[in-house]
């Protein structure tokens, strides 16, 4: 029993309470408290990572108490390698996001007052913004740390509420539409999953004491029909969350309308719950169904890769563009999860981390640009590199990471996914590879249109990045480069967990000779 995970989860919640209860006007203090809280979480998480033994038990730092005996629910937490790196991703992203959003709320208030006649009521609360971000951190850590399905579900749904308020209260012009769309898409998926969760519980109650414990649930004997239905319940929820084509339509709206900090956490972390759910729940709980449905999921993923990239290319709005690139990236991750090879699986998990870093950085740079230029449209910018070279350079690096340039972290994960998939689904891997070329196009075109060319007079006085903004981006860029050259520390943590998952789904890595052997025969 180790209380460390609970501690990491509770710290942000306490920080949020403190921030929320500070008296009015103490906005700076609120920000400092929030940042300090998130740094404490970061330090605690690093300690956790150091103490994690990749060769040890599957779940470490476990803790389990009875929560609701009537339903057989436990408060049970613990992390395997996959969950641990995602918790670490959260711990890194939250302080970065807080730093990047330092003055966003005030800026929002100014924008609001310019074109309207009700200035007083327009003021947005700084404290609520930072408190919401911290509450969100608790929920996100909880969802990855839960080893009880019920607890997971509670966080999975409860997580929506802070994000809903972040988008709805602090977002762009179409924020209420985007917030409701986000909430409803997620809830529909979540409620279908609830039916499946209950179904799974009832099955477990038929074979012994009813339980939601993950490890006990993986031992269940489920008929094929039951597996198929329950798999679909979980899969649709996760596919909406991830988002996988064709469940992605909420993401461009939510991503574009969310405030920068919210967008980073939404796309960087919240969406990972979907792909994490594939690996943690869909595969081990319903191995037969997972194998049966895998070809279809791979097909959807490949469509997502190409379709997301094509739509990204056609976007006029920078934030929508980044959102669509994420649809493409999630196609890769989905493909990696369902290829059932260790390489692809490891690649997918690594991709989740790297996508968080690179897309997070991209959203932040674009957020900085939009704060300056007051427009989200590509056509409103040109030649920015002349006045803001640092901004342009960091945009470029983040963009290159997003298009998976060798030497930057995303490359390794994309490569692993493609190689791992190639062994089993050759055609899919080949088609998906064209996604890389498309990625180069949409990133470089966007860069060229906004940063290169003649500088318009309107932007002549545009300021380059401030020290704070560079400081916010620096850790992400550093990690991208570091993991691009030396991903071993992360892959070492991920690998054993992925291997266990692959065993549970009953997939063996194909030997080099029987490349085309389909998954279903290898059980």
């Amino acid at each position, binding site marked *: 029993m180790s209380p460390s995970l609970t501690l990491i989860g509770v710290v942000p919640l306490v920080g949020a309470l403190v921030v929320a209860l500070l008296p009015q006007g103490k906005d700076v203090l609120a920000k400092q408290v929030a940042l300090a809280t998130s740094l404490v979480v970061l330090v605690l998480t690093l300690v956790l990572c150091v103490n994690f033994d990749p060769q040890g038990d599957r779940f470490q730092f476990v803790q389990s108490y009875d929560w609701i*005996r*009537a339903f057989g629910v436990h408060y049970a937490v613990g992390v395997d390698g996959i969950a641990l790196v995602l918790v670490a991703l959260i711990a890194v992203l939250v302080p970065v996001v807080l730093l990047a959003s330092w003055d966003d709320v005030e800026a929002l208030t100014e924008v609001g007052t310019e074109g309207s006649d009700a200035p007083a*009521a327009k003021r947005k609360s700084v404290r609520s913004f930072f408190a919401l971000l911290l509450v969100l951190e608790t929920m996100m850590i909880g969802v990855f740390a839960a080893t009880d399905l019920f607890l997971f579900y509670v*966080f999975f749904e409860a997580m929506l509420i802070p994000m809903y308020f972040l988008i709805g*209260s602090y977002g762009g012009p179409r924020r*209420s539409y985007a*917030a409701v769309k986000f909430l409803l898409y997620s809830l*529909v998926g979540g409620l279908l999953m609830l039916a499946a969760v209950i179904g799974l519980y009832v099955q477990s109650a038929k074979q012994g004491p009813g339980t939601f414990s993950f490890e006990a649930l993986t031992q269940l004997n489920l008929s094929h029909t039951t597996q198929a239905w329950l798999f679909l319940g979980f899969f649709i929820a996760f596919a909406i969350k991830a988002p996988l084509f064709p469940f992605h339509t909420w993401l461009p709206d939510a991503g574009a309308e969310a405030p920068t900090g919210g967008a980073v956490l939404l796309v960087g972390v919240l969406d990972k719950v979907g792909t994490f759910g594939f690996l943690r729940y869909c595969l081990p709980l319903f191995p037969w169904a997972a194998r049966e449905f895998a070809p279809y999921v791979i097909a959807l993923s490949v469509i997502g890769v190409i379709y997301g990239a094509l739509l990204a290319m056609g976007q006029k709005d920078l934030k929508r563009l980044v959102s669509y690139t994420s649809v493409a990236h999630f196609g890769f991750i989905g493909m990696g999860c369902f290829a059932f090879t260790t390489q692809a699986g490891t690649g997918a998990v690594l991709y989740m981390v790297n996508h968080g870093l690179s897309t997070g950085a991209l959203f932040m740079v674009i957020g900085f640009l939009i704060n300056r230029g007051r427009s989200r449209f590509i056509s409103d910018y040109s030649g920015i590199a002349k006045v803001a070279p640092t901004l342009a350079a960091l945009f470029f690096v983040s963009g290159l990471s997003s298009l998976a340039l060798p030497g930057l972290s995303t490359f390794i994960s994309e490569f692993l996914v493609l190689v791992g998939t190639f062994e089993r689904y050759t055609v899919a891997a080949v088609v998906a590879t064209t996604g890389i070329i498309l990625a180069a196009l949409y990133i470089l075109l966007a860069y060229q249109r906004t940063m290169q060319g003649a500088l318009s007079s309107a932007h002549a006085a545009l300021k380059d990045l401030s020290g704070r903004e560079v400081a916010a981006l620096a850790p992400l860029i550093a990690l991208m480069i570091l993991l691009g050259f030396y991903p071993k520390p992360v892959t070492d943590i991920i690998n054993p967990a992925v291997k266990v998952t692959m065993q549970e789904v009953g997939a063996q890595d194909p030997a080099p000779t029987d490349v085309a052997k389909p998954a279903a025969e290898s059980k």
Partner: protein
Amino acid sequence: MPTDIQAPSIAYLPLLPILIVFGAATLGVLVEAFVPAHQRRLSQVVVAVAGLVASLGAVIYLAADGTSRLVAESALAIDGPALFLQGTLCVLGIGSILLLSERRLDRSGGVVVSQAANAPGSREDLRLAESSHVQTEVYPLAMFALGGMLLFPACNNLLLMFVALEVLSLPLYLMAGLARRRRLLSQEAALKYFLLGAFASAFFLYGVALLYGYAGSVDLGDILTATSQAGKSDGLLYLGVAMLGVGLLFKVGAVPFQAWTPDVYQGSPTPVTALMAACTKVAAFGALLRVFYVGFGTSQWDWRPMLWAVAILTMVVGAILAVTQTDVKRMLAYSSIAHTGFILVGVIAINKSGLSGTLFYLLTYGFTTIASFAVVGLVRDSAGEATHLAQWAGLGKRSPLVAGVFALLLFALAGIPLTSGFMAKFAVFKAATEGGATALVVVGVIASAVTAFFYARVVVLMFFQEPTVDGPTVAVPSAYTAVTIAVGVAFTVILGIVPQPVLDLAGKAATFIR
């Protein structure tokens, strides 16, 4: 010997909760007659609240004793479900009484009008609306209704159940017409509720008659015995069950017997609406559970398909029609219809966890609902309550606390985790899946998603939209309303995080005596 009629032997102790409430109601009538006008209101509140607290104490005493028994010649069953629901009703009843006592919200004091019989819009009526003249008959009326509600789920005899139904309904018909503002709506509500309610009661009574013809008795235990014997006329049984069902489903507000709900919820004074939405539902579901679990426990194949259809219709119609509403009270009315559907899912499970889940759902729903209507009563403009949804725009900016509380309650109604609403929904859906009603659960979760849409829409209005210039103000309530809201919210949160004690209680209570 024709004259030799023996007096029935009655054990009075198990009837204590019911007797106390009826006693307090009668005392209220005496207070009305003999206490001077300026002391009447306080005396009424004290009598009513003390009566309910004493009744709650009696319930706890009986529950601690733990023996289920049939009393009054087995006309009444004082068992786990009856006591659980009676306890729930006492607590919710106290909340309703406190809401009725609120004086600070309306500028002329009091939420009910003193002479409801005046024609709406007439000169006397307008004069009365502005006068601070207050009548207090509403307290004994509410107490009689609550007494009937306490009796209703304990009835083991269909004829007594009919009496309880009338005792709880008649005061409610009256109270629906007592709104101080918007008199016409209120009177319409009262008339509509009365006419449709009387109609439903007639169905109920006819069902009882048919079942008497079938079983030769109106006792639920005898009916149960009769259903397991061969050679009875099944036609009488089917018709009887159906007619009885109409009467009960009308009271819980299930489709297709829901038509009264939105009009009555909208027109009644808001505290009365809270009483109807929370307490009537609890009592009526208690009776419904007893009739179907005890009386027709072995003939479930005859009535289960009917309840399936009603549950599906109720969830779907309630959820979809709620989306189109523009009035907060009407929206909450349709939401209560959808919730009736969810509770029916628990009823249809026909197992122990279905029963305990339903009991738990009723308790949590009652608390959340009372607090919601209490909040609705706070948002006012010059014409009284500002119930049009458009008027709620930007409320989160004007009064973040009230809007935040309402948002929390709405999320609970939507069944978001970490609120009691989620735990309750989970309990009934789990029970139904165990009972083999998986398809019903799937309809339930989809309907839940639809309900989430209109709850979220209100949150959008309150928090994400700018306030209108001449928007309503949030009145600062007195302790009466504040306490009710605080308790409702506290239960909503606590039962969402640590539901175990109450679930245990519901689990222990979930055995009917036959």
